[in-house]
């Protein structure tokens, strides 16, 4: 079938301006988007740069945006992306500096952030003669998590990265999860693992918008994994002080009255002795007051005692 490729171009040796090139390509019905790109490079334009490796959806090397949706060129069939018209648009994934055409900076995008997870084990008994004895039920989730390609599709969908490129992103968090949840990382090592994922620009910078869940080609639900790690972090004591104050204030408020005291939450989060932090809140508070928006007296709800009982019991359960 005859299709039209419209491919993003950017050449660092020629000013780095971005533009699009258009190619007509004749391909078999069951061809992939990658087949077409390879054919273009072979027959029409050998300056076109794009990455690929395994060609069977196994390695994660060929992520690009096809018709604005990020996916792998090697597993995307042209028939599936030309239903609305014969044009196939290929552009680099979002949130990431381009080096050339469809080749982008994986160092900044993924590898450096993965490395920030200190992604290796250093067991004391590394050279023990036999393996760790671990039930399959405790290993399965880690193994599934390790099927992560480290392709960057989840980062591509991240809501934080466009406003803060230093955010470590869901991909690195999934790598962190693999260690936080590994039954072989116990005791002090588990605490270290949590400290690593809770580093600035890490776990607590996620907005849990659940975008990443829908992006993962392996169905690993990165957003849910972040939330699971937050649950673990909570049980072990949140290591980010401001976040810890926020969460503790939140829970105390619900425990004491059944519902959230926003005013108290805002002040306790800053820290009641943190004068600078509290001063920053003043303009917002003044604006709210002049609009009659400041919450009134925070009344205890009926049922609050039951709510308190439940939360306290649940707190013991950890």
């Amino acid at each position, binding site marked *: 079938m005859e299709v039209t490729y419209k491919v993003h171009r950017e050449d660092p*040796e020629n000013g780095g301006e971005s533009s699009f090139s258009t190619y007509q390509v004749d391909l078999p019905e069951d061809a992939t988007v990658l087949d077409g790109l390879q054919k273009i490079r072979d027959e029409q334009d050998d300056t076109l740069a794009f990455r690929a490796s395994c060609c*069977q959806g196994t390695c994660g090397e060929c992520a690009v945006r096809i018709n604005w949706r990020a996916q792998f060129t090697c597993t995307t069939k042209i028939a599936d992306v030309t239903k609305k018209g014969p044009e196939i648009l290929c552009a680099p994934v979002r949130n990431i500096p381009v080096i050339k055409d469809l080749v982008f900076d994986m160092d900044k995008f993924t590898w450096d952030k993965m490395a920030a997870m200190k992604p290796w084990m250093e067991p004391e008994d590394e050279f023990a003669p036999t393996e760790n004895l671990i039930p399959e039920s405790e290993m399965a989730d880690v193994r599934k998590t*390790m099927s992560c390609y480290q392709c960057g599709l989840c980062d591509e969908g991240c809501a934080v990265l466009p406003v803060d490129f230093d955010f470590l992103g869901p991909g690195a968090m999934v790598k962190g999860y693999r260690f936080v949840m590994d039954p072989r990382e116990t005791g002090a090592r588990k605490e270290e693992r949590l400290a690593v994922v809770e580093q600035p620009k890490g776990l607590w910078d996620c907005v849990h918008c659940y975008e990443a869940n829908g992006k993962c080609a392996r169905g690993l639900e990165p957003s849910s994994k972040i939330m699971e790690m937050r649950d673990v972090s909570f049980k072990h004591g949140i290591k980010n002080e401001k976040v810890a104050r926020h969460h503790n204030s939140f829970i105390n408020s619900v425990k004491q009255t059944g519902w959230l005291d926003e005013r108290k939450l805002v002040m306790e989060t800053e820290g009641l002795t943190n004068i600078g932090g509290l001063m920053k809140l003043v303009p917002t508070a003044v604006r709210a007051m002049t609009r009659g928006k400041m919450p009134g007296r925070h009344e205890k709800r009926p049922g609050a005692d039951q709510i308190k009982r439940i939360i306290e019991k649940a707190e013991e359960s950890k």
Partner: protein
Amino acid sequence: MPEYDVLVIGGGAAGLRAAIAAKRAGASVALLSKVHPLRTNSALSPGGINAPLGSDDSVQKFADDIMNAGDGLCNSEAVNALAAEAAREVVWLERVGVPFNRDADGRIDRRALGSGSVERAAYADDRTGHTVLHVLHEQFQRYDIPCFKEWFVTSLIQDAGACTGAVALDHRSGRIESFSAGAVILATGGFIQAYRPCTAAVGTTGDGLALGYDMGVGLADMEMVQFHPTVYNATRTALISEATLSAGARLVNAAGDTVVDAAGLSRAQLAAAVDKAGRNGGGPVSLDLRPVENLTSRFPGAAEVVRLMAGLDITQVPVPVQPVAHRAMGGLDANASGETSVAGLFAVGECAHSGVHGAGRMPGNTLTEAVVFGKRVGEAAAAHAKSAGARSASTDQAARDGGRLAEITSGGSSGDTMGTIHRELGEVMHANLGVTRSDAGLTEAQEKIRTLRERHGKLRVGNKSRIFNYALTSYIELGNMLKLAEAVALAARGRNESRGAHLRSDFPERDDTSWKAHTVVHQQDGAPKLDRKAVSA
């Protein structure tokens, strides 16, 4: 000029393991790879990693099975090393993080791969290669080893007969640089991309074999090319682990009747049987996975890859399969420590021929080989580097390589293309150097390869850039594959017997009188020359 004790070329499982071992042995190490380590062909190995971990298993049994599968061409020193050190390596992998599937006692579970007599393959679902590769890369990062990724090696440096470094092109900056080293380890993988179809990643183009061959190292047993029996193949391929057969999957015809009984067959025999059944007029052979219990939880990778590449649901319909070129057993002639005939040049993994696989590799031994020999070769290279004298590597060679690249990129289109030549090469390799061969077919293949080499020699690349110029590197890769294809055809034509993966329709019997020997191809005056070499007992 960057200078290291040990320079590892290739970022797959064998290269990473070698780099870690060399570093632990006290050497300064760097790794060069034309793709990021996690994108290498090792990630594609699904089934498992063999080690005699079961209480019903032993080092001796493992060694015997390997010798048996190798059909008389195994070097016993290499086999014994593999069998003896496999368990320790697999246990180490578990200790440093591979989340292997567990048995009821919480130990590493084992399963049979294909017709393996014993349940011997440790596995991580059916993504074992992927998972092992990722953990090796984790450990590689732990040792803070410099990683020059997306650097393409253009030549090895030779000084007074020894290998003392390499020259490489950085895809990202376009810079050509010389690296000086006390020892160089080639861990660049096989050359299966010379076949179409094939199961390997696009970079599996035999670059390391060609580099060593150009330096005078012999290529051993190049005719021994393993075909994987259960591969879906259309415009793209999808490999399904043979472990599915041991788990109850059946090979059936269009009517659903079993056409091949896999029990007791070696991989080569199974490939031949599937190939034959496919030509018998009963329609294409399909792999019916539906009888496998807990299919999608045991084989999630197979379910995924077949869905993606074939658009089929393995829980609902049988998947058409055929034997597809999968794994080279031939490679750079090396001993069980990876040493080649050139001092300071080592080879490991699929690019190496240590004689461990003989004429037939047992499924599950690729990953075992990568880690066992990776460690051995990394340590041997570190020891060599310590004993080697002062090294010199001039920058002249980088300039010379720069000139060669400029020559390659001096042209425009001539009507012919690299893709066309690659496709024609792959087709003749599949047809004439495939599951069964004959003298007529091999002669035809030699002629075809010769004309393809000529056509390649006339081609030039129009893209003059050095930055992510994949046309340029593809040109070099295609040249490498053509050169190696010539050696494969020569060796295959020479071995007029049938043994292991090498089946000759005109010589159907094994001939131990003449051919209990390795073929070795050397390059002389630019032409391949065939010798034979005794199998070490």
